[in-house]
């Protein structure tokens, strides 16, 4: 019973870790570079969740001040993650640009084929 209660209270964290590990698995196990980048962004999104989750207060509201409310969720993680998202897409674009250039050079975006071509030379 205690175990079920603990699990329910930490369900957010469990899913966050699951997403994180799924992202890590894609990055490690898949050879396709576009897929690797998507895995990386899933990992990144799980970090957003990891930051935002502890900031939530049950019964609280979004941190926009109004006389009608007294309990607000924590605004600090929101600020940190807000900027992280935009930086995330900028770095994703940089990675995709690298993928495009690699494709032009090697004619493929699979890691194995690129290694094979490198060995041939």
């Amino acid at each position, binding site marked *: 019973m205690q175990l079920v209660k603990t699990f329910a209270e930490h369900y957010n964290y469990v*899913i966050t870790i699951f997403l994180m590990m799924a992202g890590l*698995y894609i990055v490690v196990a898949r050879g396709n570079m576009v897929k690797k980048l998507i895995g990386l*962004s899933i990992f990144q999104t799980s970090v957003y969740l990891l930051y935002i989750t502890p900031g939530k207060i049950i019964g609280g509201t979004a941190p926009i001040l109004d006389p009608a409310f007294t309990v607000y969720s924590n605004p600090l993680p929101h600020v940190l993650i807000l900027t992280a998202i935009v930086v995330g897409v900028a770095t994703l674009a940089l990675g995709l640009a690298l993928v495009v250039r690699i494709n032009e050079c090697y004619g493929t975006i699979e890691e194995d084929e690129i290694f094979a071509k490198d060995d041939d030379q």
Partner: protein
Amino acid sequence: MALLTLLAAVTVAIVRQRSLFGVVVLAGIYSFLMATLLIALDAVDVAMTEASVGAGISTVLLLATLHLTKTTEMSPINRNWLPLLVVLIVGAAVVWGTLSLPPFGVADSVVHQHVAPRYLAQSIVETGVPNVVTSVLADYRSYDTLGETTVIFTAGIGVLLLLRGLRRRDDIGGGGES
């Protein structure tokens, strides 16, 4: 809770999907789910950013990349179980670590004790801005935001340098099938 489970299901689908086009569409769905979840967690500003950036700009950029490269993923030659094993062990360890974190949604956990109450109390007095996220972003933590803006600037310059330089398309192979 249902949203979280749905998010996990979409992630599994992304891992298993071989067509990259499908992966990109699923990633868009994932971003919208994440934005909905963030609204449920009271992070409205973040949800707005995630919906416009994650589901909008990222999808467009990924599709543009797919147009320039291939759209199907090669199936791996030898199936290797080592990454899955490593990931499972790391995941179990981290989940074990999160069990000592405070339960979801309680108001007296450590996170809420330090700077946040001061921001909430003083924002309207000191800056006249009711949206605390904006005032913290652009005033109290302005250095941070300057740094982030510089990072975006740098990434933009990097992409322009990479993609607008000389073309060496007919070196080896071609530019993909599409």
